């Protein structure tokens, strides 16, 4: 077998495993953990479009997540509009917001951009916490919104079992990964990369760096909002501190950074390696050693930044390539 065929076979195997997993794994607890794992992988991959390819450090993505969650929930609870529609509308609103945030902030460098996005995210949370009614829309301030689990079914994106959620988020994750793959090999991807690494050089070659970054931001915020709507339908309860929290913004960014910003597999690997750490340390040590997973997070983050600036994907993809080559060369 050639290397290329081996790679395809490997990919097919992975797909078979992830699609078949709910058939073997019947426990709702594990499925719940897996749904959240895919959700995080999806969020970090969406974040990566701006944070990785465009080379800036956005730390306010929870705001877009919150826009998605609130748009679909308010429309569904108050007007009975299908969450699928709310999802897309939330994405569009988030996208417009993302562009409005990006226009003034992409001129700034490094730290200022990070600070502006933090202020934007936190400002959004404060606003939602303080507003009970936005015109005719009831967003219920700090108490949050509950989605009554009636009219279960695909049309309302609401299910009794975890399996449908599992497959929906899995398909979303695969779609966003495919999109990332396409972008990374497109003109936009190369422009973004050039603009992120050497903005002056890219601009001097005629690349409109700011426009490329804005496009990346629009896509990233759109995709993040879709995940927000999905999360609202999955947990059936949202409130400002859960969907627009600073912690969520930071977690998205740092999982992606630990995995490896700017690469396709990096953010997914980060979620794959770190989510279980946080879930299981909370399950087993939550009472005795509170905050253990965040200590691990912080330490891994520091070590990765010092020793593996391209993230954990760097040694892992290298090992994967080596195994692939060894297999391709071995006589049979």
């Amino acid at each position, binding site marked *: 077998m050639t290397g290329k065929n081996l790679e395809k076979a490997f990919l097919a195997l992975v797909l078979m495993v992830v699609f078949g997993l709910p058939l073997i794994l019947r426990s709702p607890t594990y499925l719940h953990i897996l749904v959240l794992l895919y959700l995080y992988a999806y969020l970090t991959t969406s974040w990566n479009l701006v944070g990785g390819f465009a080379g800036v450090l956005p730390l306010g993505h929870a705001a877009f997540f919150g826009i998605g969650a609130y748009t679909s929930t308010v429309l569904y609870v108050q007007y009975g509009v299908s969450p699928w529609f709310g999802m897309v509308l939330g994405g569009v609103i988030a996208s417009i917001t993302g562009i409005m945030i990006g226009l003034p902030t992409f001129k700034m460098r490094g730290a200022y951009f990070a600070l502006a996005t933090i202020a934007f995210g*936190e400002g959004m949370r*404060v606003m939602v916490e303080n507003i009970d009614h936005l015109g005719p829309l009831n967003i219920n301030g700090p108490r949050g919104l509950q989605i009554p689990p009636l009219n279960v079914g695909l049309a309302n994106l609401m299910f009794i079992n975890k399996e449908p959620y599992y497959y929906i988020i899995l398909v979303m994750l695969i779609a966003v990964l495919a999109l990332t793959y396409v972008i990374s090999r497109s003109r936009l991807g190369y422009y973004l990369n050039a603009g992120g690494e050497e903005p002056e050089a890219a601009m001097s070659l005629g690349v409109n760096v700011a426009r490329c970054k804005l496009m990346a931001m629009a896509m990233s915020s759109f995709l993040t909002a879709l995940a927000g709507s999905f999360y609202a339908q999955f947990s059936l309860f949202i409130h400002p501190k859960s969907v627009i929290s600073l912690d969520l913004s930071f977690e998205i960014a740092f999982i992606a950074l630990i995995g490896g910003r700017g690469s396709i597999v990096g953010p997914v690997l980060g979620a794959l390696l770190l989510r279980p750490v946080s879930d299981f340390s909370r399950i087993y040590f939550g009472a005795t050693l509170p*905050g253990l997973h965040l200590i691990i997070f912080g330490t891994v983050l520091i070590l990765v*930044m010092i020793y593996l*600036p391209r993230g954990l994907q760097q040694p892992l993809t290298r090992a994967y390539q080596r195994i692939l080559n060894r297999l391709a060369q071995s006589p049979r």
Partner: protein
Amino acid sequence: MLFILEDTINGILMGSIYGLTALGLTLIFGVLKVINFAHGSLLMVGMYAAYWAVTLSGAHPYLTLILVIPVMYLFGYYLQDIVIKPIFKAEREVREPITVIIVTTGVWYVLDNLTLLIFGPHYRTIQENPLRGKMLEFGGMLISVPKLWGFFAAVLTAAAVYVFLQKTRMGRAIRATSLDREAASLMGIKQFKIYNIAFGIGTATAGIAAVTLIPFYNVFPTVGVLFDIKGFIIVVLGGLGSIGGAILGGMIIGVIESVGPQFMAATWTEGIVYGLFLLFLFVKPSGLFGVRYDW
């Protein structure tokens, strides 16, 4: 009208303490060109140090400065030397390395949660506190005594740091590194030693802020986060790198927070602060007293 004046005065006092907490942030940015996301956590460490010093020795809270300042200086010095320096060495040519922001956030996570692990989530206040609830009556207005002392501490510390930077040999070396680190290195100034010292001084000022806070503020593992975000806002408002700007920026935030609730729900003042911050970022990112800076 009197209550508005009273609120304004108390706002200025509390605001100057906010400014003191942000002083180290602006100093470290001025020299290293890095926003230290762990600054609030350093303040938290200082508060725990002061809290335990008071609780174990029974001394007057302000006396703990003798212990807290050197401890915090060394803590900051070695934090920069061991954790942050390697990044600078790896990204030597970058003017404003994003990676350092990420590392300092890692430090924040580790410090806050280690504290949670060791001391638990309890809110602690010092017992046998000679300053608790002490008020000064002044023309019909009540002014908090520990906040008044905090105001003096803030102004004195800012003045001391300013004089140190302007008048001493070491201060000149720090300013030279801040202006142009390559040129400073060529003049024989050891860049990383200066970074260590600047980080140490910045952390020590957080220690002073911590000591002024403990007589009237609770100590808990995530106390730093409150001051962290506030600190970012203050330093951008006052101008990143400006010592006087930090104190003034702090006072602005303090006045908004204490006068605002007279006119609106108290929770909205936070929104106003973020709005003002974003406005400054978009319109005048160099802040009130910021040095001109290449974006």
